[in-house]
């Protein structure tokens, strides 16, 4: 089985400081990988580098494209990479405001990716937008409301709908549940888990919340100071942590 995403020797530095270094992993179709670590451990840097939002200093990020098979996305031309970003890839920001157009209605937000890939039939775009709003539990009568009128949880669900409408194969998520209260978090996680299974999505989820990865991720990578200190199956890493930092991380979680 060929991996969907193959990351080799990725390194990103900010001057003398290490953002992340020596990162290697393969992600297989339908697999969800979590990246955990404390603030400043380089997990967001790594995600931004993989998604092409930041230039990296060294390394290769191969993606199994639909047409040409494995391609190094770092060496791709910009039009190709941007095309990938709005078709096969999706990026869910921690703050929904970064990923949404706040002055455009919910339907327009969901429809934007469809129109970006050439859909020019208003009725179809609107039907798909309403269908997706329904799938993320937003009522149909909110389709013409602006995201600024939505609650934080709704904004986050709208952002997810907007990203998944073109049927991407790989989703990058940066703290998708950050800043939401626990009951809303739980619903969002439930929704995400359903969508990931149903669409057979592959995903890379960056979070500091171990409960999130426990629920969603098949595999786990633990980062500290820009280095990957431990990786393996989620349950294995969380239940039997080997590295001192992972042990600290796991023992820091309050048992409710």
């Amino acid at each position, binding site marked *: 089985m060929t991996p969907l995403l193959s990351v080799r020797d990725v390194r990103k530095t900010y001057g003398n400081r290490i953002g992340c270094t020596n990162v290697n992993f393969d992600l297989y179709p339908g697999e969800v990988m979590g990246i955990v670590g404390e603030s400043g451990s380089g997990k967001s840097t790594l995600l931004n580098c993989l998604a092409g939002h930041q230039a990296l200093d060294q390394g290769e990020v191969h993606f199994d494209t639909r047409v040409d098979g494995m391609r190094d996305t770092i060496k791709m031309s910009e039009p190709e990479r941007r095309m990938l970003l709005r078709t096969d890839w999706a990026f869910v920001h921690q703050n929904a405001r970064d990923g949404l157009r706040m002055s455009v209605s919910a*339907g327009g937000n969901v*429809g934007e990716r469809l*129109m970006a890939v050439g859909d020019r*039939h208003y009725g179809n775009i*609107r039907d798909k937008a309403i269908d997706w709003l329904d799938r993320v539990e937003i009522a149909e009568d909110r389709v013409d409301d602006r995201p600024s009128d939505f609650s934080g949880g709704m904004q986050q669900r709208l952002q997810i709908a907007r990203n998944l409408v073109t049927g991407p194969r790989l989703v990058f998520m940066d703290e998708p549940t950050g800043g939401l209260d626990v009951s809303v978090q739980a619903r969002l996680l439930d929704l995400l888990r359903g969508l990931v299974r149903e669409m057979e999505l592959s995903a890379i989820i960056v979070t500091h919340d171990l409960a999130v990865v426990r629920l969603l991720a098949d595999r786990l990578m633990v980062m500290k100071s820009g280095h990957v200190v431990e990786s393996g199956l989620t349950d294995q890493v969380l239940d039997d942590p080997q590295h001192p930092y992972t042990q600290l991380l796991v023992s820091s979680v309050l048992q409710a």
Partner: protein
Amino acid sequence: MSDYNFAYLDEQTKRMIRRAILKGVAIPGYQVPFASREMPMPYGWGTGGVQVTAACLTPDDTLKVIDQGADDTTNAVSIRKFFENTADVAVTGQTSEASIIQTRHRIPEHPLTEDQILVYQVPIPEPLRFLEPRETETRKMHALEEYGLMHVKLYEDIARHGHIATAYAYPVKVEDRYVMDPSPIPKFDNPKLESPAIQLFGAGREQRIYAVPPFTKVVSLDFEDHPFEPARAEHECDLCGADHTYLDEVIIDDNGGRMFVCSDTDYCETRQSAGHRGKFSPKENAA
């Protein structure tokens, strides 16, 4: 003759502007940056159009200046005076007699010919601006032909109003490549953008020049199920009776009385002198 250099601008500046114009004509719809000069009029009064006109003008030209279709409003009068003073060129109100026409917000009703240049005054040349505020990003979107966002604006129109409510500055795609803002002309004029005349667009404050060469394909953007429709008021001109022109609505009393008149004053007057009459025309020899 005054003490100004011909057409106000110095020769080096005109040369720089002509280069931008040539580049614009070579790449239809592409916004060419140019070093816009400060002109003796405020931004928003046609500083871009004036510079383009100045760079195109020759002593043999006949100039016409239109402001919202009219030849006798402030903007038109002051720009026409400006070139009379600084270039000593002949001026006219008649579309058919002009070799260069500078316009604000209208395309003349009278069909243009291959011998004419139409210069538009443009306030905001970037059609994507209100959706994407970053210039770096909009330039990239033009370069990579990523125009999905333009349809988001039209989508919003339909979602909110039930139809495409954009009535002026209606975005067009030029020669299947660049999406262009045709300046704030009514969408009624959009079909006339495919013209035998050279069309030049000057934005002074934003420092951009772009062009539509003669006989270039210009398509107004739309959806398959909401096609583009050039809109006009469902009336006849009350002065010349025309039912195919773009009309201005004029309030005439405090009791809701109104009249509709051609926005193109030259066209309306030509029709009237040819004997066409509307509802409010003076009665002939009524005595």
